[in-house]
């Protein structure tokens, strides 16, 4: 396959990354930039470690992951269900689609004020925002996947006597799987983006809280470590989802 990464590609990537990190490290250590605003990447980790214990960081990470995972799971499940129903049953489609199309372009963060009024500052409002982040991409992709299933496949299945719910389960849903997978990845990314914003508002646990609290204390090193951790978590979980998708449908569908 042509998308294999060669050693040369890895080398180039390493050079590109170092080209940013090395001058930064040098600039911070030599005092060209103020290290209390631009802390050196290496020193930030060690000095942050003095202010926070590993268990504290893990606790924040755990909370963030738990929030994003539960909100995403429910949002994706609701999105898949409603997407399938709206895509497969004509009447349901006409009923549901205008509302979805109307709400879909609203960025999840624009819901923050309403979320706070409806659900307060606690967990439910965060859950709601993350839910929205997952729901809209998944419902849209599922709907599209269901309605785009090649009609010839449905006809072919009909010649073997399939109809109704059997057609839906055995043909339409597998046929929609590639679109659905794309929606899930986008939904996960958006849920993650919403998570940090939700934790910036009001929380006493989570990575978003951790970096916001560090700002109040003036701990730039903790902020740097926090945002890098958020990036790494997102990267790793997205990679895991991509891997699961490839395992699930990669053999029959080019992903």
């Amino acid at each position, binding site marked *: 396959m042509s998308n294999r990464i060669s050693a040369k590609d890895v080398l180039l990537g390493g050079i590109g990354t170092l080209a940013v990190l090395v001058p930064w490290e040098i600039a911070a250590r030599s005092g060209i930039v103020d290290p209390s605003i631009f802390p050196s990447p290496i020193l930030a980790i060690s000095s942050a470690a003095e202010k926070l214990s590993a268990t504290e960081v893990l606790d924040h990470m755990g909370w963030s992951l738990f929030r994003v995972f539960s909100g995403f799971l429910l949002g994706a499940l609701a999105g898949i269900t409603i997407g399938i129903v709206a895509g497969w049953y004509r009447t349901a489609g006409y009923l549901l689609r205008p509302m979805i199309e109307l709400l879909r372009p609203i960025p999840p963060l624009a819901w923050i004020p309403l979320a706070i009024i409806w659900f307060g500052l606690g967990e439910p409002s965060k859950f709601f925002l993350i839910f929205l982040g997952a729901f809209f991409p998944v419902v849209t992709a599922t709907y599209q996947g269901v309605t785009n299933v*090649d009609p*010839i*496949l449905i*006809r*072919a*299945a*009909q*010649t*073997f*006597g399939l109809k109704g719910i059997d057609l839906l389960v055995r*043909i339409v849903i*597998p*046929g929609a*799987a590639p679109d659905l997978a794309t929606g899930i990845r986008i939904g996960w990314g958006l849920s993650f983006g919403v998570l940090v914003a939700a934790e910036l508002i009001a929380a006493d646990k989570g990575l978003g809280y951790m970096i916001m609290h560090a700002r109040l204390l003036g701990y730039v090193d903790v902020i740097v470590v926090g945002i890098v951790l958020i990036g790494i978590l997102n990267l790793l979980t997205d990679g895991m989802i991509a891997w699961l998708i490839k395992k699930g*449908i990669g*053999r*029959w*569908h*080019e992903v």
Partner: protein
Amino acid sequence: MSTDAGFIELNDINMRFGLPAEALPVVLQGIDLSIAQNEFVSIVGRSGCGKTTLLNIVAGLVEATTGTVTIAGNQVRGPGQGQGVVFQQHALFPWLTAMGNVEFGCRKADISKSEKREVCRQLLDLVGLSHAADKYPRELSGGMQQRVAIARALALDPEILLMDEPFGALDELTRIELQQELLRVWDARKKTVIFVTHSITEALILSDRVILLSPHPGRVFKDYQITLPRPRIRTDPAFNAMYQEIWEGLSA
């Protein structure tokens, strides 16, 4: 019911898509056909003359505006009355392997899983693909895909095989190979075949009978009995004479 003639009967089939108020053009008009059991019938006609529509009506996938189709005396009211269909594009389920697709076609509820597997393995063998059982459609060539599609249709154990330009997208060599294989299958499994093609040569190689449809609206224009001995030879003068006759019919 008479024993031989009229295994499949089309009685005054008329077809117009859309609502009457839309007044779309008539696609098929007054089609009367009687096809005998185990007969191999080709339908030839210009693009757009209603061949696919006619086949879909026999398959029970499309309902004629007026007129009836009967199979062995039973009126066709939908798919699954003994009609196996092979489409122009392979129409395989991309998420199933070659074996999975053939097994999908095997709807028998009264046989065990292993018996089913054995039946399907034989079918893949019949179309020369036992080595590709675990491959997915996208890993197969066009010719192999169409072979799987034929095996899948046969898995239904249909009395009738409806084929809509099944080899139209294949290269010349693969096409000739598949024609030979289809004749072998037809011989081995005794099916009644309605085969749509726009190739006169293909129709003559395969068929007992060639039906010419005229366009706008689609009607039965000519009905040729092909009595040339089998196997048919393309370079045979009698073959060429028949080709010429049909060609003149088509250009009339």
